[in-house]
């Protein structure tokens, strides 16, 4: 088989770049300003993102049946590169003030991004697992990057131990699925006689129509399938921090250096959801009924617990951690809605999920960048510390307010439009109760977001440091761009939605080919 290496050039470039940054910072230690590595990384990421979008958009191919290079992959490649770009921009001043070994820091961010890109492209379970581990290991180190801070160490250790535990769960699930289907490939579109056995193809047996009859009696292996699905879902639930697999999240978020918290909450989630979505729509769609109930319960519990816990928080980072947990609940609703009457409806759910994901990530990075800018100046991150921020730094206060309103799902902002579409899909695909919980949970969330906004706008600054301060230009520009994006998405989501629709359509190709009746 000829391997078409040109398909995964961006991954190679990124890996090279990461190695170069780590090595370069060691070689030129002391001779180059530390900030240089940050700006170089950011610039390289931006260029790579643009080139990837330009050169790969029309690709619809497959690397050795292991990595798909289709619209979905390219969309997420650009998305991840964008996330990394904004994270690095936000991190430069922070790293300069508080961290050492910048080369390693940015290099690890690049390795994590590489993991994300591979994860979004993988269409084979072990490849996906390896990508996930690359991502996770980078994050274990990054969370504990602030070596001298005990919180950072604690967060990292908890994340790593529980991460290992969840990996074990997932691997066990993968082996069960392999046992049931005899394959780890998600789906094989047009096997052209090569006779590749795929999970989706084998699972079609369970619906009684189509598929390969070489499989043992479906009823006999059914328990294995069910347990396998549950274990994989649990492992994924850990990665996206769904309740009850969420408890590492607040500790890791609080301990990690702030830019890493941002990266974890944006990039980590986005990558896990890209994996989640591709796996469940390409491979597991034929048996949607077997896992949808579990994901639905996870979604409901996550939305409720995440929001209730957020009410109790006094620390901004922990608040954002629980906020992100509750956002995961809304995103899971999109996964649940994949279980629909027709493939078209499943496709709507996938598009809605990706749209909400992008809106959430853009908003979250904006909020975190603003928090980082605040933290750079004050070194504090409790909710009461932002008291009077509207006086001291009106721009940051505005950005935080806009971002938090967007997370709460207020109209005008991205959060409203995207959440609206997710819930609408849930309603029209028959998950009325789930949508209702989501809407109610959003009400609750408004309370704790408003708590922060109230501190900023209704009180005078307190303490010794009440002076106005400036935000560095590159950071202010990044924040302004993100907020403009949040407004644009909120007012006019159609263009992006069209792009996403085009991207997610590919995920359902085999489901359509195996004919609608076989899939259900």
């Amino acid at each position, binding site marked *: 088989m000829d391997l078409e290496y040109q398909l995964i050039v961006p991954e190679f470039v990124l890996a090279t770049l990461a190695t170069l940054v780590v090595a370069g910072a060691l070689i030129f230690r002391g001779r180059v300003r530390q900030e240089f590595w940050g700006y170089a990384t950011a610039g390289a990421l931006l260029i790579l993102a643009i080139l990837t979008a330009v050169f790969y958009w029309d690709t619809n191919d497959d690397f050795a049946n292991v990595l798909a290079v289709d619209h979905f992959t390219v969309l997420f490649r650009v998305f991840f590169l964008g996330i990394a770009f904004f994270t690095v921009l936000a991190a430069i001043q922070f790293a300069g003030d508080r961290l050492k070994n910048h080369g390693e820091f940015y290099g690890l961010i690049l390795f994590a991004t590489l993991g994300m890109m591979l994860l979004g492209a993988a269409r084979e379970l072990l490849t996906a697992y390896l990508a996930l581990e690359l991502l996770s290991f980078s994050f274990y180190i990054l969370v504990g990057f602030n070596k001298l801070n005990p919180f950072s160490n604690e967060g990292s250790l908890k994340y790593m131990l*529980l991460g290992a535990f969840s990996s074990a769960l997932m691997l066990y699930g993968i082996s069960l699925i392999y046992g049931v289907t005899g394959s780890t490939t998600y789906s094989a579109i047009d096997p052209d006689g090569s006779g590749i056995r795929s999970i989706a193809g084998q699972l079609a047996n369970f619906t009684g129509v189509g598929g390969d009859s070489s499989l043992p009696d479906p009823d006999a292996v059914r328990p294995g399938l069910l347990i396998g699905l549950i*274990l994989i879902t649990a492992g994924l639930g850990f990665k996206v921090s769904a309740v009850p697999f969420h408890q590492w999240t607040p500790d890791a978020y609080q301990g990690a250096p702030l830019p890493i918290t941002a990266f974890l909450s944006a990039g980590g989630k986005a990558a896990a959801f890209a994996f989640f979505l591709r796996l469940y729509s390409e491979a597991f769609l034929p048996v949607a009924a077997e896992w949808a109930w579990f994901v639905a319960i996870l979604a409901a519990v996550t939305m409720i*617990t995440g929001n209730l816990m957020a009410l109790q928080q006094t620390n901004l980072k922990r608040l954002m951690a629980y906020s992100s947990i509750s956002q995961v609940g809304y995103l899971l609703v999109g996964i649940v809605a994949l279980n629909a009457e027709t493939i078209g409806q499943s496709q709507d759910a996938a598009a809605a999920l990706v749209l909400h994901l992008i809106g959430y990530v853009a908003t979250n990075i904006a909020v975190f960048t603003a928090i980082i800018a605040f933290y750079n100046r004050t070194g504090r991150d409790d909710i009461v510390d932002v008291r009077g921020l509207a006086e001291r730094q009106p721009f940051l206060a505005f950005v935080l307010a806009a971002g938090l309103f967007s997370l709460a799902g207020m109209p005008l902002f991205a959060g409203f439009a995207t959440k609206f579409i997710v819930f609408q899909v849930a309603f029209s695909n028959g998950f009325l109760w789930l949508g209702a919980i989501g809407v109610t949970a959003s009400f609750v969330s408004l309370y704790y977001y408003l708590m922060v906004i109230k501190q900023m706008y209704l009180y005078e600054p307190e303490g010794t440091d009440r002076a106005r301060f400036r935000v560095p230009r590159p950071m202010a520009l990044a924040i302004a761009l993100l907020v403009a994006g949040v407004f644009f998405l909120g007012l006019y989501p159609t263009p992006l939605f069209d792009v996403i629709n085009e991207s997610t359509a590919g995920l359902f190709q085999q489901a359509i080919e195996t004919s609608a009746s076989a899939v259900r």
Partner: protein
Amino acid sequence: MFWAEHAWILPAIPAIAFLVLFAFGRFLPRGGDFISVGAALTVFILFFFVLESHLDSIAAGLGGIANAGTDWVNFDKFIVRLGFTVDSIAIVMVFVVSTVALMVNLYSTGYLRHHGKPEPRYWWYFAVLSLFVAAMLTLVLADNLLLMFVAWEGVGLCSFLLIGFYYERRSAVEAAKKAFVTTRLGDVGLFIGLILFWRATGSFQISDIIAAAEAGRVNDLPQVMGDGYLTLSTLLVFLGAAGKSAQVPFHVWLPDAMEGPTPVSALIHAATMVVAGVYLVARMLPVFEVAPGASNVVLGVGLTTALLAGIMALGQNDIKRVLAYSTVSQLGFMFVALGVGAVGVAMFHLLTHAFFKACLFLGSGSIIHMTEEQDARRLGGLWWRMPVTATTFIVSSIALAGIPPLSGFFSKDEIFTATLGGANTAVVILLGVAAFLSALYMARLVIITFFGPPKVLAVIRRAREADPIILIPLVFLTVLTFLVGFFAFDQVGRAFGFPGGINSYIYFPEPETFHFHNDIAAVTGTVSLLGFGTAWWFFWGRNSRRAEALRAFQPRLAAIVENKFYFDEAYQWAIDRAVLPLARIVAWFDRMIVNDTGINAPADATRYAAYWLRYHVTGRIPDYALLMVVGVALAGGLAFLLRGG
């Protein structure tokens, strides 16, 4: 065809100008006023490109209607377009808006300065002015009611912000509030109306709604109201139009709106925003004609307004207030034309009125700017001190009064012709009275402002001719006042490239040509001259003692007129006696039932649940792992229960 199909660029330019001014205006030299002026100038120039491509499309036999746009929202059956239409009505409106906006922008750069120093919030003024132009252009180009409604509220917002521009003044704040709340009443009607139309036709597109109404498909689904549904929706839309166009009984906000800077009055409260109601009815006129009784309501409201406002203008002494009532009255004329189904005529009067009224307002602004006095009784004798202002003001007044050969004469004459053909004689006679009144109040204003001996020495001492930047727009608008009237003649229209005169061009389905009848023209001309004569008889020089005598003869009648028929007092009484007591009951219900019980109880329960829930966070890794195991185990158990293993 490029420009007609990309007409969205026109509102986009001032919108960008607004964003720039909003973000950076205060840091720019001159408050960034050149950005606003530049945007207005670009729009004005681009208008001619749009016009040219529009006329090309007519010449090519394509009908001259260009639609373009994209879907704004598209979920299931709920489709809202971000669409723009260029047709003849839109062309007229864009011409009016772009011309007056440019003139007002230029004028404002001179007006908002005192002794060369810009007023406070100078940049903010131009930012809002740009936003207004953007919203107004969106309003006139929108092809669907929802987008139009968004722009409609946008212009309302700008009007609110600009009336309250001097928010240090209590009266300005009150006026801004009054304008906003009063127009809101109509807007709610408009919103309900457009939802009713959407419910019946499944579309916000104006063309779809018109087609559905003409096919008799607008009726309520369970057939309770039948045709009444169409009339109801149409009248609710008209409610919005009447609110925006200050028709009786919503007229009370417009005179108070004169608290804003005078150029704002010229742009928003005379030439553009207040005619949005006329424009909306003109757009939807086919629906009004199908809906039983709707046209008669339009006619009745228009006629009442034309008459009442004409009388009220007589009792006012503030220059700007006289002009405001005159605007209300002229808008009434336009609605009368719409009521008899003459769209072209209404749009023609809208066009001519926009220019001479803008000129009048800007002229009054010139007076106010120089003398710092706007009570006409304290002015007088300004003719010699401010010759350019006086000349342009007088010419525009003559136009408004309807004396040939100025533009107002042609358009008003058209309205009479249309009314003679479409309504009964009583309407025509009452309209004649209203026309007489307009000549009368304008002549009165001119006489006591510009002629006779100066009343207050300090005022006349300050009176000097204003800066050229203020006079140029005045002269330009006066020239337009001369010219646009002749557009009515087919020959002139053709010379400008229009197929036929303005009238036959504006409204395609039933081409109307200019009906110039000597006898009608003679009568209307005479009525206007009679108005002038009466004004001379009562107010010229020492004749004013006759006015005094008349007033002493009927003091109570005079008080009624001067107090504007006690509309404001009646409204205030209704608010105090009916609205506020009702509000108190609602407030009690809200506080006790809704808030304390309905909201706080679930909120407390939520907080209580959250309080207990937090004990699951122990911070210990074994506990975290245990929870994960429990989760998986429970799921496994449930799996065999739910999915039957």
